């Protein structure tokens, strides 16, 4: 377990500048939100909050899809995998690292959302429930991207992830409205998008649980693929 955590923390450390920029962006928007005239502009405030919240899923795809590629391209992966680190441990470290990075974003957004939306009548409890939805969705999205990135470059990995995550939305609209939950990242993100001042947030724990189960399944698929690929290309 120790190597996994070391790799996870190292991943966050290596991504510290993009993470810091994202957190500063959230804080900046929050300070701007604190200066708005409530309750007149509270709908705008919620709209910006939801928009910034949904981005975390995109960031998780970005982090997950580029993690292995960056490590391979820089050849830093060699020194890590030359140690007592199995490939599944390496991937676990990256999954946890991506989730930690997104979790940090969600936590900051939860805090700032509580400051800005709380006074305007949005339940603070609901803000944190939405953050749980987003954290689950981003863990799943990041792991799917990581799975694709074991054999595709980041651009195609992001495309593949988009197909997997958005397919349930298409199926929901065209085939059966219950199919949206197959890969629940869409469902969880939609929960955030649909939240409003008028109705309390209705959280179903099923998609959250399903997202966590699927995160594990996609991680297992990643390890199965990653064990079978060459991770180093000869310098010659």
């Amino acid at each position: 377990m120790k190597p996994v955590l070391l790799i996870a923390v190292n991943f966050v450390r290596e991504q510290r500048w993009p993470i810091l920029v994202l957190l500063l962006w959230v804080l900046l928007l929050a300070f701007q939100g604190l200066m708005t005239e409530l309750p007149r502009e509270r709908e705008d405030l919620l709209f910006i909050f939801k928009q910034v919240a949904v981005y975390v899923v995109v960031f998780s795809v970005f982090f997950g899809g580029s993690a292995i590629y960056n490590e391979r391209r820089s050849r830093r992966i060699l020194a890590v995998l030359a140690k007592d680190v199995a490939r599944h441990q390496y991937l676990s470290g990256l999954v946890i690292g991506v989730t930690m990075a997104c979790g940090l974003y969600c936590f900051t957004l939860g805090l700032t959302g509580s400051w800005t939306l709380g006074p305007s009548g949005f339940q603070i409890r609901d803000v944190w429930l939405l953050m749980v939805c987003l954290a689950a969705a981003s863990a799943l999205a990041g792991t799917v991207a990581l799975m694709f990135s074991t054999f595709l470059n980041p651009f195609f990995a992001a495309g593949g992830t988009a197909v997997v995550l958005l397919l349930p939305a298409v199926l929901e609209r065209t085939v059966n409205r219950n199919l949206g939950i197959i890969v629940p990242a869409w469902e969880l993100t939609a929960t955030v998008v649909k939240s409003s001042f008028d109705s309390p947030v209705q959280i179903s724990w099923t998609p959250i649980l399903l997202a966590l189960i699927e995160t594990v399944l996609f991680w297992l698929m990643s390890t199965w693929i990653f064990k079978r690929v060459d991770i180093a290309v000869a310098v010659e």
Partner: protein
Amino acid sequence: MSLALEFHQISKEYRNFPGRRLRALDDFSLQVEKGEIFGFLGPNGAGKSTAIHLAMGFMLPSHGNGRLLGEPFGHAKTRRRVGFLAENVALYHRRAQRLVQFYAALNGMHGAELEKRSVEVLDAVGLLEHASRNVGKFSRGMLQRVGLAQALVNDPELLILDEPTSALDPLARVSIRELLLRAREQGKTIFLSSHLLSEVELICDRVAVLHRGKLVRLGRTADLLHSADQTEISARGISANLFLGATTENGFVRFAVPTSSQRAAIEKVWAAGGEVVRLNPMRRSLEQVFLEVTSSQEAPTKVGEL
């Protein structure tokens, strides 16, 4: 003798484009014994790094198999007993000591031992005074030395080094050479891939030359450097004109003759009233051996004791 590293009929093919394949290693077999310094040579593109990456489990062979310290390639736990330095070393940008500790921790080291070993290895590679500097600001030579430190930190039984001294200045090169010789004295095995043939010649017990994915020479360094075809003779009391290409030095005439005509040459010296003072198999440099084997495409050849 037990083996530290074993390649058994390994082939490795890369697929570049659909239908196009590049064979980096072709039916490659090699055994490295424990306690020796083994030189692994070959021109660029010979397949050296591929062989090393296969041994470390970074790649999977297309055919064949191999063992690292008795375990199949790719066995993670075995890598705890191995130190590896990649060509063009790439490390995270952290303070040197923290970085070495990070890699040591990945191998399960912790606590006081981790602290002690990180100081020891940084001292061994001459970087202790730079321990608190970020490696991102290091020169290439210093980076290579940190790479060596992270390879040594877990006190490995087997060191696999891909061009460990390529970016080092002569002084650092000497200290690394001494470090490797000390490691051998401690019973460690060193598998050294290098283009610096003079280095290899100085420290390696055995040498293998790889060319176009095939093993073309393998043997004890001393055996490879001695030419069985030519004999060098030193004589006195004769004229240098007696033998083609003879040179005079301090009153001694030196010349080389094919080993098959060595007896005739000695008799010729005696007949001229001279005296043979020394007769040695001709010694070549490793560079000559290397050029000889890589400029031809001969079948795998084994030289000397295997």
